[in-house]
């Protein structure tokens, strides 16, 4: 009784407007930097190339036309965007599985060696390099010389073994995979670090108990470790999916989206800054946002579930 009667300043009481006061700064910032640009992008996606008129004015006679959604027709059905969707799918399949599996493998193996810190530092190192820097480095690795001398590391290896040099970045089929390898090289360190922390969180008693009961290491890994760190794996996967959907730098630096390596974010950039078509760029941005939203929702739900468990 006496405790409840203690003096509480008015401002700390949960009133009608006090929560808004606390939320205010965040709301204002979010409105200025997220809400307003977001709504304006949505509006611009229905406008023409410079926002001066509605999108249907860009329709051509005798061509298919989606009226005010004309920019979305481009963003969803044009051949270059279909290439981009296909490539983003490839990126998700190969890069997410590559980084997560490699990260898990390295985290597990590193857990058992004395020089763990050193090994993990080396794997993590590429994360410290800027994407553009990594793109330039790998562009040299993949360099293809049309003459006898190969200054590209990979082609120098191949020719010294008697093979024929490959133009890694221009050959369709190979080039997107070559770019994905760069992505995996950069992001494995991130997955490894997060997964390693989760692995270390698995109680040693559980592992001991299983081993005492006669489980071999393979069983311990799949039956005990992996199920216990599954929530973390899920978060890593969704984070990587979001990252990969937004992939831009590597493609922009290494191929500029040419030779069939186009991805959604690079197309967005080209429409905006090379073609000066804000309508199309805005439509692509909206499409990209809509694709990413489910991954974000999933991620937040997982995060909340994890918080609730603590």
């Amino acid at each position, binding site marked *: 009784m006496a405790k409840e009667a203690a003096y509480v300043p008015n401002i700390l009481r949960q009133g009608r407007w006090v929560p808004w006061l606390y939320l205010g700064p965040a709301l204002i910032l979010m409105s200025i930097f997220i809400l307003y640009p977001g709504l304006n992008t949505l509006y611009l996606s229905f406008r023409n190339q410079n926002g001066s008129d509605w999108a249907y004015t860009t329709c051509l006679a005798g061509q298919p036309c989606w009226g005010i959604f004309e920019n979305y027709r481009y963003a969803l059905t044009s051949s270059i965007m279909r290439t981009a969707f296909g490539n983003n799918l490839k990126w998700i399949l190969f890069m997410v599985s590559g980084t997560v599996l490699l990260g898990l493998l390295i985290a597990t193996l590193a857990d058992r060696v004395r020089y763990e810190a050193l090994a993990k530092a080396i794997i993590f190192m590429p994360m410290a390099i800027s994407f553009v820097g990594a793109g330039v480095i790998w562009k040299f690795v993949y360099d293809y010389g*049309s003459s006898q001398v190969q200054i590209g590391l990979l082609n120098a290896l191949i020719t010294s073994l008697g093979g024929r040099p490959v133009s890694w970045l221009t050959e369709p089929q190979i080039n997107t995979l070559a770019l994905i390898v760069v992505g995996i090289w950069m992001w494995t360190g991130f997955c490894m670090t997060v997964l390693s922390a989760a692995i270390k969180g698995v109680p040693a008693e559980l592992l001991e108990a299983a081993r005492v009961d006669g489980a071999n290491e393979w069983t311990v890994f799949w039956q005990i470790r992996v199920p216990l760190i599954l929530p973390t794996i899920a978060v890593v996967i969704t984070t990587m999916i979001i990252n990969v959907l937004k992939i831009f730098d590597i493609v922009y630096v290494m191929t500029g989206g040419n030779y*069939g390596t186009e991805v959604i974010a690079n197309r967005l950039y080209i429409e905006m800054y090379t*073609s000066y078509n804000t309508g199309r760029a805005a439509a692509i941005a909206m499409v990209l946002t809509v694709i990413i939203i489910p991954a974000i929702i999933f991620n937040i739900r997982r995060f909340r579930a994890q918080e609730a468990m603590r």
Partner: protein
Amino acid sequence: MSKRLWKVIVVLAGLALLIAACAPAATPTQAPTQPPAEPTQPPAQPTQPPAEPTQPPASGIDCMGAKPGDELTMLYQWSGQEEARLNEILKPLVDACGIVIKPESTRDQALLDTKVQAGTPPDIAFWNVAQLVQYQDKLVPMDVLGAHRENYADFFVQPGTINGKWLGLPVKADIKTIIWYSPAVFKAKGYTVPTTWEELDALVEKMVANGDVPWSMGFESGDATGWTGSDFIQDILLVKQGPQYVLDIIDGKVPYNDAGVKEAYEIYGKWAKDPKYTVGGAQGTLSTGFLDAIYKVFSDPPEAMMVRQSGFAGGEIARKYPDLVYGEDYDFFMVPGAKGLQGGADWMMAFRDTPAVRALVAYLSSDLGGANWAKAGFDLSPNKGATGNYTDPSLLKKGEMLANTQGFTPDIGDTIPGGFGKAEWTGIIEFINGTKDLDTVLAEIARVQAEALGK
């Protein structure tokens, strides 16, 4: 007590410093609020303070009523040595009229766009021809500003004339319709410089028969990859169809998938895809950097005999191989049979009508302006006053070509707005890479052309 006093003193001192620091910066911003001086003012200004230098001492520069201290804001893409040359060209004007030039240099077009959209454009911008179309409602026509029309050939006025208004003045040009080669190597191998397209074709076949690779081609140029291909194809169009055809493509009168364009692609593709005709074949063409492609012709031994590249290649050769001598070890000839030149020009456009702007326009378009441009050696000047005033031998030769040409066409891809240029490059890459057949590629580019031109 004394501690507090000190605090107060420190704060006051800080404030005083702040105010002092801000004050001088604030004054110049008042200048632009001046109303533009009436154009009817006589050039002589009797009301001027005595500090004014007595009118142009036979410098031949008309200040158009600009007063000493008048500011002129400029935006251009030049930097370093280019900027130094521009300053050299503008110095007589600055000296004669006392105009204060406030330049800004950037390669980022977004800066120009932002400034214009914000309502604070530079007085003068030196930019691309596409901006004349983009800003046609905001630019002041050149004839209003007193430009000397008589110093420019029709084909230099035409691209700058948008919907009947003469909005842009080409100040600097570089010609692209040229092929670089090594006279020494040609002599040693018994090749002669071709003068017709048929001779070029025969020469190429002769080189192949001798086991030499005729062409060095290189597309790679970051996110602009493919432009060397589109340049070459435009030259073939100039040979086979002539300048009017190219201008019709730019206008949209000729669709990009016309038979003439297809023929040019086929001629180009025959060379660019085959390792007998170009270093490394299709993959070599795609993955070689455009600068490396130039070097390959002048390496020892040369990997190829010729490279088709714009005027800037000469500077690149000199930088890479400082021992080579122009005219002996490297030289160029015009693409034989071309009925016009392809070239890039930097266009001067005016967003405001002030005496200082008028003075600049009048000066640069005058005989003197052209001559000074040529003497500074800042590429070529389309101004007729430039002819014969170049000092650099290669510029002299290029200036000759420019003075004698029957047509001058801007880059198709740069001129058609709305992503056409990128679509053209992408199409050429796909064609060379063999990922799409030619008809599909051309139809796709033609579709973008129609979209961009609204036809």
